[in-house]
């Protein structure tokens, strides 16, 4: 990377740490450290919520997904605005009004200590591991792209994040999130502008070419529970997922607990509701335009430079043969793409259809050669190729002007750091409030808890870095943990929904939670098989149903005694 780009990245990292530490003022008590004394304005909370949800995977993986698969992934977010509105009138007033530190603390007030501890423990388990994987994703990509050891690329992102989160608490996290969010949006818009300027065809033709491959097909109205991204899975399954995430996950709940009032907390969530779908569409559109860009500019057969080097060393003959085939396929596809643009100018509808058909055939041919190269890379390296994650980094480093590449790399770091910081802060809060203070040292001084909180943040930070470094070798284990995480996301939402129903009781909530997790495990491993977005619906509905029935049964058996 050019020294000016490194200078921009270095300057950004330095600024983030200095700004984060500067924001530590007023965090000498745990209310300040964990909740910013409930003093943040709605727009800071709103941007912090959005920054937390937008990770490096979004900027690298989702843009790559736009390039290879198109825009249909945006359906995943169709339930988000509805979920925000529902939360605004249900859980937010309960949680903010209860003056709690963690969402799970509220469950003890409503039910009992074991329901609180179980839900908090499940949060620590899943989020502890996910903090590592969130850090691993950009770490692995940077390591391959820049040719540095994984330890260094993880440390480059992890150490500054742990530092400002540990010193400044939630206040530093939220204010740094604001700047990071601005940087991310500026970088995305700048890339779109550069792409539109550099493309050899006008934007209308670019979209027509992308559309010919189906990359602009957003809506899929089929009702198939095995399909992950459909309009219905996004709207129904997505609503339950977002309700679970924003309503019961401490990393999100803690954001809006810092707001000045219930009203500001609600408004901050609605800010996400405003912008999430347009922002995700923009992210995917960047990928789609990068795909069009590489129709006219030669691209490598494999975007992952580390895999390319290993394949070239291990089986040079096979790889060079594939490269020759790909070069030929590129030439045919390039000519076909230009024909699509030219056909529009003729105004002949039949010519337009014929040109689109010819283009699709050449695209399928190029895709076939790339598929063979990816299979070869997997055989040689013994790793899943994940080549989609290297499309955007390659484009950024080789095609963007000097300076803008540095800004985009800094934006990817910002996206990673904002997500990890929120996770570390919430992990520390749940550890100290739900376990250390609740079970071990309930009557210590505020300064004691503050010190323990900072130590907990540092420990979780080190844990995340270690998991990130070993993420490649722990691949299958992390997948198991993530699957396990999906068992209880909807189920925990079910417990919170039960908490809002007047007749529900503690045993109903606890047993309902266990049965809900069992129901999700059944549809995950057994029959009927359903896509993961529906797991949250299954979990939440089961918990509420079991909880209500059990609570009523308990009421009827205990009523004569009382």
């Amino acid at each position, binding site marked *: 990377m050019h020294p000016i780009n490194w200078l921009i990245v270095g300057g950004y990292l330095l600024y983030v740490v200095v700004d984060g530490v500067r924001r530590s003022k007023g965090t000498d008590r745990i209310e300040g450290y964990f909740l910013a004394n409930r003093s943040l304005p709605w727009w800071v909370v709103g941007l912090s919520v959005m920054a937390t949800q937008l990770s490096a995977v979004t900027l690298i993986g989702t843009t790559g997904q736009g390039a290879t698969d198109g*825009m249909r992934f*945006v359906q995943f977010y*169709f339930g988000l*605005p509805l979920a*925000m*509105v529902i939360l*605004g*009138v*249900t859980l937010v*007033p*309960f949680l*903010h*009004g*209860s003056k709690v530190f963690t969402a799970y603390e509220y469950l003890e007030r409503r039910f009992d200590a074991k329901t609180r501890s179980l839900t908090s423990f499940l949060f620590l388990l899943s989020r502890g591991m996910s903090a590592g994987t969130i850090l691993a994703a950009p770490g692995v990509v940077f390591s391959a792209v820049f040719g540095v050891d994984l330890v260094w690329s993880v440390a480059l992102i992890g150490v500054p994040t742990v530092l400002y989160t540990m010193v400044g608490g939630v206040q530093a996290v939220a204010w740094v999130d604001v700047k990071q969010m601005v940087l991310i949006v500026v970088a995305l818009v700048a890339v779109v502008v550069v792409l539109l300027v550099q493309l050899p065809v006008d934007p209308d033709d670019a*979209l*027509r070419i*992308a*559309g010919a491959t*189906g990359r*602009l*097909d*957003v*809506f899929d109205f089929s009702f198939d529970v095995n399909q992950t991204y459909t309009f219905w899975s996004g709207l129904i399954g997505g609503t339950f997922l977002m309700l679970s995430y924003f309503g019961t996950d401490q990393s999100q709940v803690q954001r809006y607990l810092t707001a000045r*009032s*219930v*009203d500001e907390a*609600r*408004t901050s969530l*609605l800010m996400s*509701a*405003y912008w999430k*779908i*347009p922002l995700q*569409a923009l992210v995917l559109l960047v990928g789609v335009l990068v795909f069009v860009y590489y129709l006219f500019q030669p691209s490598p057969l494999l975007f992952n430079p580390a895999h390319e080097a290993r394949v070239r060393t291990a089986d040079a003959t096979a790889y060079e043969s594939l490269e020759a085939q790909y070069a030929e396929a590129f030439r045919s596809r390039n000519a076909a793409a230009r024909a699509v643009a030219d056909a529009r100018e003729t105004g002949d509808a039949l010519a337009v259809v014929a040109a689109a058909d010819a283009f699709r055939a050449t695209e399928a041919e190029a895709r076939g050669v790339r598929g063979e190269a990816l299979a070869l890379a997997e055989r040689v390296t013994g790793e899943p190729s994940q080549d989609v994650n290297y499309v955007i980094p390659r484009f950024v480093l080789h095609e963007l002007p000097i300076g803008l590449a540095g800004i985009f790399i800094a934006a990817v770091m910002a996206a990673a750091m904002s997500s990890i910081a929120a996770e570390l802060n919430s992990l520390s809060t749940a550890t100290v409030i739900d376990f250390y203070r609740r079970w071990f040292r309930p009557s210590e001084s505020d300064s004691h808890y503050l010190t323990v909180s900072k130590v907990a943040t540092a420990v979780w930070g080190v844990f995340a870095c270690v998991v990130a470094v070993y993420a490649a070798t722990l691949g299958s284990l992390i997948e198991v943990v993530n699957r396990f995480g999906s068992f209880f996301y909807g189920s925990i939402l079910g417990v919170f929904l039960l*908490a*809002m*129903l*007047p007749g529900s009781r503690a045993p109903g909530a606890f047993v309902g939670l266990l049965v809900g997790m069992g129901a999700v495990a059944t549809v995950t491993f057994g029959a009927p098989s359903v896509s993961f977005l529906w797991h949250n619906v299954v979990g939440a509905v089961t918990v509420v149903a079991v909880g209500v029935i059990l609570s009523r049964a308990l009421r009827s058996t205990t009523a004569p005694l009382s």
Partner: protein
Amino acid sequence: MRVREPPHSTTGKPQSARNRFRRTLLRVLVVQAVALLVLWLLQVRYG
């Protein structure tokens, strides 16, 4: 099905807060409708 009342509100002025929330809600719905319409037009025109 009855739903529990929130523990206590910190909104201060419930009526004006409710009105502000309704206005924001309406805007959110309008923005979503426009976003979905744009995506739909993108699919119809170019897909």
